[in-house]
């Protein structure tokens, strides 16, 4: 006959908690050993009685009263917990995708603005920014001479000046009706000939 099953082995055998090999060996031994079978049966009964006993309420407990009391206390505890719980929540951090889209849109708008601004203005802005970057306190004074070609409109017509030379488009005796200057570097004069009533629009663009 094989060796008797140890107490711990019998104790685990009754609930199927032995490993496969140990369980098979124990089963084989139990088939032929009355003594081990009796001890194993005692463990099985203990287990069953423990389960039955654990389901029984202690003698001195009035369960209905106790359950009602505990239910009320649990309600109070939960309500008290809600009162002291922090209400404010941390704002959700901005994800990298929305941040990347916003940065891209900003770069696109800045580029579009830069390309649509006349070169003389962007150059002047660039010089001003360089001056600020290099730590010069005052903004540089940009004279007319430094700006390159300048278009101006007056009562006599539209004039283009550059490096001391001027080119004027005169409307003669006609009175100007409207004069407009755009940020793109153009000037327009719209006037009516007093004799013929003809409307003439003159526009001069700086390239």
């Amino acid at each position, binding site marked *: 006959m094989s060796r008797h099953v140890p*107490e*711990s*082995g019998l*104790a*685990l055998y*009754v*609930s199927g*908690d032995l490993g496969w090999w140990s369980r098979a060996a124990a089963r084989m031994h139990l088939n032929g050993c009355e003594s081990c079978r009796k001890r194993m049966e*005692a*463990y099985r009964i*203990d*287990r069953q*009685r*423990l*389960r*039955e*006993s*654990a*389901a*029984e*309420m*202690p*003698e*001195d*407990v009035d*369960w209905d009263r*106790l*359950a009602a*009391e*505990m*239910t009320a*206390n*649990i309600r109070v*505890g*939960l309500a008290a*917990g809600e009162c002291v719980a922090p209400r404010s929540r941390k704002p959700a951090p901005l994800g990298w995708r929305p941040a990347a889209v916003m940065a891209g849109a900003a770069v696109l708008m800045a580029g579009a603005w830069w390309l649509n601004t006349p070169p003389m203005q962007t150059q002047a802005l660039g010089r001003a920014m360089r001056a600020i970057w290099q730590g010069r306190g005052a903004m540089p004074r940009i004279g007319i001479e430094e700006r390159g070609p300048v278009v101006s409109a007056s009562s006599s017509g539209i004039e283009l000046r550059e490096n001391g030379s001027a080119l004027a488009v005169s409307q003669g005796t006609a009175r100007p009706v409207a004069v407009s200057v755009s940020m793109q570097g153009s000037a327009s004069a719209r006037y009516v000939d007093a004799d013929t009533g003809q409307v003439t629009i003159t526009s001069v663009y700086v390239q």
Partner: protein
Amino acid sequence: MSEAPGSTRYDAVPLSSEQQSRFVSENMRRVFLLIYRVVGNVADAQDLTQEAFIKALQRQDQLKDLEKAAHWLSRIASNTAIDFLRRSGRVSFSDIDDLPEYVTSSPSESPEQLVLRAEHREYLEAGLQVLTDRERTALLLRDVEGLPAEEVAAQLNCTKATVRSHIANARVKLRRYMERRKA
């Protein structure tokens, strides 16, 4: 236990106040008895049962699998009881002569059966107090709650081999205690 743990299935958390009430009433007896068997007295078991339910309902967003709500609650209950025993540093040994003697009454059983049954129950109740806290908790979770050894290990935060060792020790100690009492 006599009640099927967590017979109601919940669709989503957080539970409504009506679902919370049902969750408490369905599981209260089971949780109370589990804690009572671990700590061994009614007053502490009452406090700890309340504490376990409040913890569970306040942390219900941590419950991943709603079908395992009853096991999840058992875990909170057993941890609450173990923490209590650890805090109070209670010694888990009892003197055999100090143990109470009482007899239960049930109309369906003969006086001899009553005496025998009460005797066994008393031995078991007293025998549980001979075990260490972890042995007693492992034994109750395995035999009374019917949890598999893996789940008991998860609840006690130890390995399955340790749980087997706790369970084997607990059953052997309990058996020896019963034999000594009978002798």
